[in-house]
């Protein structure tokens, strides 16, 4: 007998060594960077850790006692797999982002990094998994002794040497613990994947599948003649049992009956919530894409492993005649048939199933223990140099603790339960995480209070209605309590809580625990508000999938005293070791383009703090990491105070994380600093490139001709050196952006075939790019902001694009403002120039007027017997009126009055020409008509060219004879009045206006003037002067007034005329020039 024991033991040890080698090889491959486990098939196989020895042995056991409902435990996970593409991918993504180490860490981080929730989840997992580990130990021990033909039982010993007796189960437990320690607790960083372990687990999954298929084929086609043969034989031999096993039991009297819904529900939850499942699915996931394959491969695995369970079970019943000992039919059938090889394979399959589960489970739980139970206690003391050693050993201790506790549970409970029932206790415990988990992922209001209270209630009810009764059968708990309830209160009887009878043990427990769990979770979440920390975390878990949460506060802390990076390194070294922390810090700096060793600025500090927290979280869990860093910061004597005030000006309703807030702040600083657009654009691009690790950033503007030119560029030297350049490929995008005013981005140029081909860009090494319109709402696009990255694929998330668009909006605002300012300045200078011009012209005109005035005679000539006066008052600056006196000798005087049409400078020039021509006649004694004729000929060309005319009245007075001879060229007729008698006449002759025709004859007449005669020469300005109602002064007004002032001297007559005209028009400014000449015969 001892020989058989030894050989079985030897094979077990050889097998263990084989697994060890596989694990070591995988680990070695990982260290050298050529991972063998990073593929979807291995991932799917590692999920097979779900199938423990419970599956391997227990399924057949359950199939032959309660029938086909065992299959629900595997159908549940197959159904859950439907949801993985959303649910699991989401969990994996969140976990990777936050360095999550376990399901306890996940829940704790989701609910405000609550240390209490983490501890509670750990406790539940720890206690809940105990029966499960016991189950594995029981299965392997039993199968070991069955194979070697020994008596079975928890106290069974094997004899090593001659005197030392070791309980085989303990030996197994210690071996597994050692293996787990070697591959699961080599290093402290528990967010790191354990490739050796996963390789071993995947291999074991393969072994157990092959073993079970081998046994199944052996029973179905070796012992019997295929499926149909087994089923038909069974139906004829034992129709009652057939009906019992191949239908879901509806009679509830059977003590083994479990509601099919309960089984389905528990297994659906367990596949994701059991700590080991969470560990292999989430923490050990190397690539999100593997999930898609696992979604169908894993259910297929479950299907295959269960395919032969029913035939084996029935084959067992048919062979042995009963279903007692059905838990080990897998082993006993081939063994009793004499096929020891198959039996041995079955044993190894069972061993694999148990070992894989125990290892992963113990590592997962020990991580949780370390992070959520030990760590918070240790943190109360000051960090010391030997902390890393303590921590890693605590983790190892945790592994031993978990496995040994399972061992003791096994010793206590022993054989009182079937394998399946022990497993279901664990499933029920894991189900308690479900409300907090699902709520945490999809319900943003789910809060810490709800999660803690719900989980706690569910756990207590599980403890009371399920774990406690499981002890009952072993005699540890008084029978009285179980059958009559505590203190005889039947209402509180653990298996019939609150009088709920008629349900099986599992459904009963599930109903009450879920009722309290879910309702407490919902009620507390609704009634109690989330604190700031919780909201922060909610956003990280739910917000990253696009749901925006308004009014999130921004946490930014300030230190009153500068901190150095070395201090952070020292802190981290205390937990993860110096080398590890240096490496992390180097990575951090290489990502941020800043140098180490200096003091940390206020802006840098929150990021540094976050980085430290995240790094530590990978080893000690999120809650503990936060506590460590906060303790550290308060220890170095710096008070932390919120500095919301700095950011109040830039805080918006939009949810923003710190980086984007920082960039917004910097951007607005840049924009407000200067009005130089070039400087603004350059600085802004520099900021974007630096903060977001971009490689090239440029701003393109389109000219009116439709050609794009680079307004600003950062990150690459001159682009136009060697066309065609890669960036030219992107021009179609600019057109697109200009057209639809939307941001266009490509997150992975290698994967996405962009519509405009970007081959050169890809060749250049760029992997993502974005083009953002720079424009103000409701206005056309001003320019395009283009960003390119060579390193980061998937950089342009929706949030990031929103941030960039908002910055582009700010820039557009700045550009518009600058442009407006420039336009206003231009307008002002134009106006100034115009004013200057006007002023110059005005001055010129004034000068011209003065010159013109000087052309008019200063004073009238003095001739005995007559009194002459003349005056001109101009309306505009220069005018066309002209009068003059030419004294031919002391007796003869020529009097001329003229009006050049218009009031332009041209008229003034013509006037001066007239004057010059007339002056040249000074010494001639020609007659007035003669003079006019000559003048007309002389002026004709000039007048025609300038389209002007002249009216002129020319008179010659001889004082000696008293005869006035005169000629008129279309001028107003002078008025002749006499003071003695009311005689009045107008002087008129035939004659055309000057400048109409070249050869014109002017009539000449003469009149004898006598004493008392008053002669008034005037221009049309006098008679055409209007009052405010538009009535003209007219010739009537002229006569009327002249009659009143005939007695006055000539000069006074002029005065009174001008005064009257001013009174008449009611204004000091004349509408037209008025020139008057008065000749009074004394």
């Amino acid at each position: 007998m001892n020989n058989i024991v030894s050989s079985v033991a030897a094979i077990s040890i050889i097998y263990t060594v084989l697994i060890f080698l596989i694990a070591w090889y995988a680990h070695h491959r990982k260290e050298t960077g050529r991972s063998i486990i990073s593929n979807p098939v291995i991932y799917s196989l590692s999920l097979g850790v779900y199938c423990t020895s419970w599956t391997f042995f227990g399924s057949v056991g359950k199939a032959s006692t309660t029938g086909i409902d065992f299959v629900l435990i595997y159908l549940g996970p197959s159904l859950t797999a439907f949801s993985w593409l959303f649910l699991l991918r989401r969990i994996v993504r969140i976990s990777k982002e936050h360095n999550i180490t376990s399901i306890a860490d996940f829940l704790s981080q989701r609910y405000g990094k609550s240390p209490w929730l983490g501890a509670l989840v750990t406790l539940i997992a720890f206690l809940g998994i105990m029966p499960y580990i016991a189950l594995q130990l029981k299965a392997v021990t039993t199968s070991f002794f069955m194979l070697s033909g020994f008596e079975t039982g928890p106290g069974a010993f094997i004899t090593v040497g001659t005197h030392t007796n070791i309980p085989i189960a303990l030996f197994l437990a210690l071996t597994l613990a050692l293996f787990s320690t070697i591959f699961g607790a080599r290093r402290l960083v528990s967010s790191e994947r354990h490739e050796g372990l996963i390789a071993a687990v995947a291999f074991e999954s393969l072994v157990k599948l092959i073993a079970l298929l081998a046994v199944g084929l052996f029973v179905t086609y070796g012992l019997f003649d295929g499926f149909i043969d087994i089923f038909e034989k069974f139906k004829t031999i034992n129709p009652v049992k057939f009906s019992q096993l191949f239908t879901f039991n509806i009679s509830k009297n059977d003590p083994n009956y479990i509601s099919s819904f309960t089984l389905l529900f528990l297994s659906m939850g367990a596949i994701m919530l059991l700590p080991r499942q969470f560990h292999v699915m989430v923490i050990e996931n190397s690539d999100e894409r593997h999930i898609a394959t696992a979604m169908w491969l894993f259910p297929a695995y479950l299907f295959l492993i269960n395919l032969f369970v029913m035939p084996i079970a029935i084959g067992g019943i048919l062979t042995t005649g009963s279903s007692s000992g059905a838990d080990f039919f897998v082993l006993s059938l081939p063994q009793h048939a004499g096929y020891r090889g198959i039996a041995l394979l079955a044993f190894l399959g069972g061993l694999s199933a148990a070992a894989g589960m125990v290892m992963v489970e113990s590592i997962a739980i020990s991580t949780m223990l370390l992070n959520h139970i030990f760590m918070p206690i240790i943190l109360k003391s000051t960090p010391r140099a030997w902390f890393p050693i303590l921590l890693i050993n605590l983790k190892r201790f945790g592994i031993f603790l978990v496995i040994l506790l399972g061992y003791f549970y096994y010793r206590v409970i022993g054989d009182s339960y079937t394998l399946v029932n022990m497993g279901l206790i664990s499933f029920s415990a894991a189900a308690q995480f479900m409300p907090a988990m699902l709520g945490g992922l999809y319900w943003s209001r789910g809060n810490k209070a709800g999660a803690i209270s719900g989980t706690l209630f569910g756990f207590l009810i599980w403890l009371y209605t399920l774990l406690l009764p499981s002890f009952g059968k072993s005699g540890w708990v008084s029978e009285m309590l179980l059958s009559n309830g505590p203190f005889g209160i039947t209402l509180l009887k653990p298996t019939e809580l609150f009088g709920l009878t008629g349900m099986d043990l599992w459904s009963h427990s599930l109903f009450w625990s879920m009722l309290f769990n879910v309702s407490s979770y919902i009620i507390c979440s609704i009634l109690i508000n989330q604190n700031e920390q919780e909201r922060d975390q909610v956003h990280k878990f739910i917000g990253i999938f696009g749901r925006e949460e308004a009014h999130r506060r921004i946490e930014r802390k300030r230190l009153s005293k500068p901190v150095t990076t070395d201090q952070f390194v020292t802190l981290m070294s205390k937990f993860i070791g110096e080398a590890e922390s240096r490496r992390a810090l180097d990575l951090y700096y290489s990502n941020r383009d800043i140098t180490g060793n200096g003091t940390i600025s206020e802006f840098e500090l929150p990021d540094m703090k976050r980085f430290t927290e995240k790094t530590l979280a990978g080893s000690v869990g999120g809650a503990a990491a936060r506590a460590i860093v906060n303790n550290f910061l308060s220890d170095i004597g710096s008070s932390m105070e919120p500095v919301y005030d700095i950011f109040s000006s830039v805080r918006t309703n939009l949810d923003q994380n710190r980086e984007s807030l920082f960039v917004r702040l910097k951007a607005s600083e840049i924009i407000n600093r200067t009005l130089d657009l070039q400087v603004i654009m350059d600085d802004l691009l520099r900021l974007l490139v630096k903060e977001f690790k971009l490689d090239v950033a440029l701003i393109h503007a389109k000219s009116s001709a439709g050609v794009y030119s680079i307004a600003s560029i950062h990150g690459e030297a001159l682009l136009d050196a060697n066309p065609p350049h890669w960036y030219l490929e992107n021009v179609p995008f600019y057109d697109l952006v200009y057209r639809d005013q939307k941001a266009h981005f490509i997150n992975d140029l290698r994967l996405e075939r962009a519509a405009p081909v970007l081959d050169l860009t890809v060749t250049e090494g760029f992997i993502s790019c974005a083009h953002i319109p720079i424009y103000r709402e409701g206005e056309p696009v001003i320019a395009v902001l283009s960003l390119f990255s060579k390193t980061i694929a998937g950089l342009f998330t929706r949030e990031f694009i929103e941030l960039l668009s908002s910055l582009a909006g700010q820039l557009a605002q700045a550009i518009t403002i600058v442009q407006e300012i420039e336009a206003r300045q231009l307008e002002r200078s134009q106006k100034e120039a115009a004013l200057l011009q006007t002023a110059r012209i005005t001055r010129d005109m004034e000068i011209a007027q003065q010159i013109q005035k000087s052309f008019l005679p200063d004073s009238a000539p003095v001739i005995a017997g007559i009194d002459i006066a003349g005056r001109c008052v101009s309306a505009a600056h220069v005018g066309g009126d002209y009068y003059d006196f030419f004294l031919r000798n002391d007796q003869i005087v020529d009097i001329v009055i003229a009006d050049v049409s218009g009031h332009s400078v041209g008229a003034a020039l013509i006037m001066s020409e007239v004057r010059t021509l007339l002056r040249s006649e000074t010494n001639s004694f020609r007659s007035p008509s003669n003079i006019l004729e000559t003048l007309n000929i002389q002026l004709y060309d000039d007048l025609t060219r300038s389209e002007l005319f002249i009216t002129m009245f020319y008179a010659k007075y001889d004082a000696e004879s008293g005869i006035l001879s005169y000629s008129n060229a279309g001028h107003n007729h002078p008025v002749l009045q006499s003071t003695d008698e009311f005689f009045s006449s107008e002087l008129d002759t035939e004659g055309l206006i000057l400048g109409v025709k070249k050869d014109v004859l002017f009539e000449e007449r003469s009149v004898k003037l006598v004493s008392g005669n008053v002669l008034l020469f005037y221009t049309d300005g006098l008679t055409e002067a209007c009052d405010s109602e538009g009535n003209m002064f007219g010739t009537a007004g002229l006569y009327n007034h002249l009659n009143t002032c005939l007695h006055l001297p000539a000069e006074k007559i002029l005065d009174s005329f001008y005064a009257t005209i001013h009174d008449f028009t009611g204004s000091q400014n004349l509408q037209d020039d008025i020139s008057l000449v008065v000749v009074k015969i004394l």
Partner: protein
Amino acid sequence: MKRIFSHMIHRLQMRESWIIFFILGIIMMTFPFLHIFNKPTLLFGFPLLFLYLTVGWIISILVIYLFMLASRHEDKTPEEKNDL
């Protein structure tokens, strides 16, 4: 045939169809639906319920496999990427 296949793949991309299949699976695994097959008779020599569950399981695996193909297909279209 190929067109029907690609059309089906396209329909499967909709998230709703995932949820519908998931709920359908749960309904088919529970009473009263199970009652139909919950009879101790043999069909083609297989117990009826055994056959139902086995065939149903295979179908569900095939459906998920098709879903996966659909999701691969979906991954190639850029706009859906961040939509989870």
